[in-house]
């Protein structure tokens, strides 16, 4: 039996890199230190692989690659989409394919943390790596996120409990604020919980900005409250901000998917910038899929834009909404799709999925999922971080190399994408 140390978990944006995995006879026998989800993901990484299928019939890998290349080569306005749970090496291949076939290129952040990414285009973001939170943060704000259930080791490894360089007492050295629309296991861990009415992120951030900048908002109707929370509580939050040495605000989909999306995050981002006039303050997006940040990074260095790119003119054009996956599918604009390392059948709105079922879809995934039953071409791939190596970007942009511990009968995403690319190139030349 071999024990692999320092294994990087690929499940969520935390990329915990301290796992221990026992392997015997090319099978995962035990996973230690991971959270329940991470452990499950690795333990079952090799199970439930789909068969290679073309139009519902089993096929050889060569035939599937050939059919994929044919579909993509003939499509007039294809979509290349996904990438959030595979390596940046595979993501780089996907951008190349999208360019070759003049496709639309998008990733799941366009309907998750995309508004936060767009806010960074408008205002920028003051941020830090997770170690700064661990070592310095004496004020932690969780806003619209619930890491206890979604990023299960975030609190122990990074944000709440760890004993850092300048936070030797761990949790005792930190003040903790939670802002959410309902009580969650995370809000229960906070010193101050502000339960807000839904849809008011922009107002909250605006009022906090005003107070941080020493302005007193006026209330016409005499009711001194914002988002259902009395001003007194917001003043208290601002006092805590101004009294801390190094604050870190973690925001989740509750902020990015609030009504009016990107302007909310922009205002939150401006709040963090303002706070730096008094103290040091950073914000971090609680990215979900293991390498969804990697999609944004790779797309940005290759195309200039983190999401929603169109190559129909040969050069990258970026327009969220016009080239974002959900609106494009809602408008029924694309005529074929290459979907890798995400499960649109599970994640996208029903109408979008219904439309996808009417066009040729090529799908690469390590497992049977809610897309594989109806996708036109299904190619099983080796699970990254278990049977394929490559690079993942943590929620704070720290890149880590995920490992190969066992052999899969299937090739990696990267290898399949390279084969499809070569086939498209070959067909185009002949």
């Amino acid at each position: 039996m071999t024990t692999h140390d320092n294994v990087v978990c690929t499940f969520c944006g935390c990329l915990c890199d301290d796992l221990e995995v026992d392997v015997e006879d090319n099978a995962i026998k035990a996973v230690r230190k991971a959270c329940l989800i991470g452990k499950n993901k690795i333990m079952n990484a090799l199970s439930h692989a789909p068969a290679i299928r073309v139009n519902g019939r089993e096929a050889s890998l060569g035939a599937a690659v050939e059919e994929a290349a044919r579909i993509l080569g003939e499509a007039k306005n294809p979509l290349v989409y996904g990438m959030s749970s595979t390596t940046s090496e595979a993501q780089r291949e996907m951008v190349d394919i999208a360019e070759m076939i003049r496709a639309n290129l998008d990733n799941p952040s366009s309907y998750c943390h995309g508004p936060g990414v767009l806010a960074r285009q408008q205002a920028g973001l003051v941020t830090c790596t997770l170690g700064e939170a661990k070592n310095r943060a004496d004020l932690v704000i969780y806003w619209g996120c619930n890491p206890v259930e979604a990023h299960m080791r975030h609190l122990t490894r990074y944000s709440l409990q760890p004993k850092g360089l300048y936070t030797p007492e761990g949790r005792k050295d930190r003040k903790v604020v939670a802002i959410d629309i309902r009580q969650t296991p995370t809000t229960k861990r906070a010193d101050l919980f502000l339960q807000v009415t839904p849809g008011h992120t922009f107002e909250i951030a605006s009022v906090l900005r005003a107070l941080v900048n020493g302005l007193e908002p006026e209330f016409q109707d005499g009711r001194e409250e914002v988002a259902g929370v009395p001003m007194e509580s917001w003043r208290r939050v601002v006092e805590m901000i101004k009294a801390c040495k190094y604050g870190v605000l973690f925001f989740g989909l509750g902020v990015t998917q609030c009504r009016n999306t990107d302007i909310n995050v922009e205002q939150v981002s401006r709040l963090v910038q303002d706070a730096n006039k008094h103290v040091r303050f950073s914000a971090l997006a609680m990215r979900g899929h293991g390498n969804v940040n990697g999609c944004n990074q790779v797309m940005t260095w290759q195309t200039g834009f983190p999401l929603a790119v169109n190559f129909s003119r040969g050069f990258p054009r970026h327009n969220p909404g016009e080239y974002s996956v959900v609106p494009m599918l809602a408008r029924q604009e694309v005529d074929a799709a290459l979907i890798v390392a995400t499960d649109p059948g599970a994640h996208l709105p029903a109408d979008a999925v219904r439309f996808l079922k009417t066009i040729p879809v090529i799908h690469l995934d390590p497992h049977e999922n809610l897309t594989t039953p109806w996708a036109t071409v299904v190619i099983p791939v080796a699970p990254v971080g278990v049977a394929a190596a490559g690079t993942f970007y943590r929620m704070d942009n720290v890149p880590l190399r995920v490992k190969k511990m066992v052999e899969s009968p299937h090739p990696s995403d990267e290898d399949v994408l390279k084969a499809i690319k070569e086939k498209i190139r070959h067909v185009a030349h002949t």
Partner: protein
Amino acid sequence: MLRIHNGLIYDPANAVNGEAGDVIIHDGVIVSGAGLSEKQKRDMETIDASGCAVLPGGVEIHSHIAGAKVNNGRILCPEEHRSHVSARTSLTRAGCGLCVPTTFRTGYLYSKLGYTTIFEAAVPPLEARHAHEELMDMPLLDKGCYTVMGNNHLVMQVLKDPDRAARKERLRELASWLLRASRGYAVKVVNPGGVEDWKWNAGAADLDTPTPPFGVTPRQIVTALAEAADELKLPHSMHLHCNHLGEPGNLETTLATMRALEGRRVHYTHLQFHSYDKTKKGGFRSGAARIAEYFNKHPEFTCDVGQIVFGPTLTMTSDAPMEFKLFQMRKGKWASGDIEMESGSGIVPISYAPKILVNAIQWSVGLELMLLINDPWRIFLTTDHPNAGPFTAYPEIIKLLMDADYRMSWLEKLHPRVRRATGLFEITREYTLEEIAIITRSGPARALGLAAKGHLGAGADADVAVYRLDQDRRAMFSRPVYVLKGGAVVVRDGEIVDTPNGRTLCVDPEGGRSLPQDLAETFDGFYTVKMANYMVEDEYLERPEVVPCG
């Protein structure tokens, strides 16, 4: 074999100054033509370089082109990408951007100016994989990156050691380990101590401001790291971005830093940003003359200029507190990122305008430095891309240096008070073609310790740029007739014709195989990654070439 025939060869490293001749290439390397008959030469594949200047490929010593901070800059400014696009061709990848171009486009743009080697200026080890991944997507260039160490906790922990001899040896080992961990090429120091200070919300660091909580001063940091780089016999000296970048009166800090480092090899980067005097009221004045006077007497030092280019650009640096100051003045976009245990970074868009007095002075200071520092082997052309402007402005800057009348014609476009604040318009010096070849290739190659680059002698890498001679030096240097990378023609008549990938340049210094117990404990306790996952793997290096130490 391939022959570049009948061009005027400018190869200052071999004392060849505009002599007509042939450059002969075999297997990607320049070879001597001495033993070859005329017939053998005639039978070779031949590039006709009649009427052209033949120079070694350009060597970029300081540019921000790859990695976490640069990519954040790309995210921050979609508006600048839209007006600068390139479509995919059968050879080249699509891309966009001018000040922060996408990776492939960066490779093409540099290559189309005749550059063949490039160094990314600031990489924190924790994010080094990212920089290397981007560099792998940057074709046509040999490349390397500098590892930032000037605010590194482990460095400061070592410097706190009261035992002088132990401290020295431990720091040398640590610097070596950090270069290995990040696969870096040189020791980079950015605002020593100052980035850590700002994490404590403290003001700007002076040379003798103790850095909390270590109590180590910037003076100690720079002297010790310069010494470590020397003792490791690294091919490039410590690469230093001094304290107080961009502040009026900062020449005092710059001069004090230089005095503290006398006798050691040091490269002062973007010296323009560190050469400001101040008026009685605290306004900007050029301090270039004083800096140049001192610098001229110290052959152990090299520098690059960081010349201002008028127009919009992005400032991006590991000097996060400087960017915070800039944001407070400009109030536009601001991105910042503190990096645990080792560094920070900041990005603020900016626009330099000739009618803004401060910008006009900055522009003049850069040119003054280039004209007043009399040894071209010690000052190199950079724009600290994209901080002072995009590298695509190099041909314009060359024209400013080579054509005094053209330079004088700028006076009326600048803020009227600039003449009082600088001495630029009293200088008549014009650069020669040979001097341009030195400040853009031969000089940086020598300062970087690249024996096979920056010259055209036998054994050099066959990286060559051929420019058609033209009295308009901007036109001449904007569009090389041929560029060869490793012996392959990659640019013809200003267009890309081949896109081979370059190599990763790295070092293999003595020692640094592991961290000592106490530093390993600090690492394990306070980084959020395991040490095994910190070390950049071989997979991130493209055909690595180890440049020897010593």
